[in-house]
């Protein structure tokens, strides 16, 4: 196990930010750490990076205890904090060298590594600028470059794509994918597509407690209590006719101006589509849309984090 969180509890004053959280991440895995704002994602990460001491429980990173052996933990972790704080008055190169020196790198090795990171993170054109003059996307790259500089085995990224535009999100995502081949990556987010695009596994946390820890596929199939098919007709169809189709449990008319859209619910595992197609063909209705709805991640997220 590369990162193991054991019964971690963190209390701020009287507020329990993290309550008895346990999960583990094995080497080479990319894990999405999901939860609504204020669920305790950042706090868990801060304890894992030895920034905050845990109230009880512990976090092991590559076998080192984050509270008892902070130096060893800090050496193997690359960390991108939330909001990506940077020294705005430094130049990109200067900042990366400073960061490298704190890991004890120096001389030619440091310079080569900085040049390498600048290239890898696509900072080539911006490398001689001050960080304050960079756009948000480039700042995020600088933050990532800083986290990757010392070639850590564990990467902890706290909302690496928050506040970026869709193109930048895609770029940062690809960058994370690219660098994460031989690393353990834990990243937090509340964007579902991100998890879908990057992760092997998801840990969902809500109000300081783990509510799900599974692969995406399992989560999706578990949450889909009913299969839904969305159909569009050119003309209005009687709802009762539709609900009389074999296998249909419930029919809902969806309010869109054009076309006439219906949602058909059935038992999981039943595919309604052939039946609907035959129904339309028999009655000579123009079926202009037919789509099976998957248990979407948003729904899973919603149902997991709204329960309590």
């Amino acid at each position, binding site marked *: 196990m590369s990162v193991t969180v054991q019964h971690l509890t963190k209390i701020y004053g009287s507020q329990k930010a993290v309550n008895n959280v346990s999960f583990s991440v094995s080497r080479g895995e990319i894990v999405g750490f999901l939860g609504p704002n204020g669920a305790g994602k950042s706090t868990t990460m801060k304890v894992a990076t*030895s*920034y905050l001491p845990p109230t009880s429980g512990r976090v092991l990173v590559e076998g080192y205890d984050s509270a008892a052996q902070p*130096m060893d933990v*800090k050496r193997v972790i690359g960390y991108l904090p939330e909001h990506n*704080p*940077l020294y705005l008055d430094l130049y990109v190169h200067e900042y990366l060298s400073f960061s490298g020196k704190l890991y004890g790198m120096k001389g030619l090795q440091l310079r080569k590594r900085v040049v390498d990171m600048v290239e890898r993170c696509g900072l080539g054109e911006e490398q001689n600028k001050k960080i304050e003059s960079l756009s948000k996307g480039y700042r995020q790259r600088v933050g990532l470059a800083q986290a990757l500089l010392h070639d850590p085995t564990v990467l902890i990224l706290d909302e690496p794509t928050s506040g970026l535009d869709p193109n930048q999100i895609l770029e940062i995502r690809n960058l994370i994918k690219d660098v994460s081949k031989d690393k353990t990556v834990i990243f937090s987010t509340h964007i579902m597509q991100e998890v879908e695009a990057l992760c092997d596994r998801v840990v969902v946390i809500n109000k300081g407690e783990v509510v799900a820890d599974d692969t995406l596929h399992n989560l999706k199939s578990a949450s889909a209590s009913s299969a839904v098919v969305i159909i569009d007709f050119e003309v209005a169809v009687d709802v009762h006719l539709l609900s009389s189709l074999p296998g249909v449990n419930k029919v809902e008319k969806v309010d869109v101006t054009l076309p006439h859209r219906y949602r058909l619910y059935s038992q999981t595992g039943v595919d309604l589509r052939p039946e609907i197609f035959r129904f339309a063909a028999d009655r000579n209705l123009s079926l202009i849309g037919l789509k099976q709805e998957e248990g979407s991640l948003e729904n899973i997220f919603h149902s997991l984090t709204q329960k309590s």
Partner: protein
Amino acid sequence: MLQILAKEFSSFLNSLIAYIVMGVFLSAIGLLMWVFPETSVLDYGYADMFTLFSLGPYVFIFLIPAITMRSFAEEKKGGTLEILFTKPVSDWDIILGKYFACLLLVVLTLIPTVIYYFSISALGNPPGNIDTPGVIGSYIGLIFLAGAFCAIGILSSSITPNQIVSFILAAFLCYLVFAGFDSLAMLNVWSADALLIKQIGLLYHYDSLGKGLIDSRDLVYFISVIAIILLVTRINLGTRTW
């Protein structure tokens, strides 16, 4: 520690802070020593550097908090302290790095005033008639005093994310620790303990060094004060509550 010292110091040089501090200190002291008739050496009649060593600390009370106020406050506000604390450096490395960067700037600011020593020495009658050991002792005292002020400034900066609060707090504490105890001792309630109260303050030990006698007790006193203040800073930052 050295990496942090170097980074802090270069950020002094890259911003205007270093130049403004040096410029203001040297102009203020220069005006006081050579121009303003009330404190000018030329009108005073004695070839000594009393003005520099008696008024220098008061200039420091304003300047040193201005140097130190950003050290932790700015990083707290910007969140970069989290970056620093998650790098493999100890809290002491960070505190001492920042502390010595500030002290280095102050010492550099003091260096040009050595010229005054030679000017006054040449102006004396006969030339060279100046209390050299006294000057050396005073310089040592001034540097240790600056060291204590820097420590106070760093502590104040570690308490708050607001630079202005940090500045005001540091200036007040510097004044209190420097001259406050002396003034307090003058209250007519202490009787025999007045000297003890006086000895708690920095001024007593600073004056003692200024006489040209480098007493190890004074040095131990200054070093202890600095160490205690930095220790409080370390404890305060160790709680990670901001």
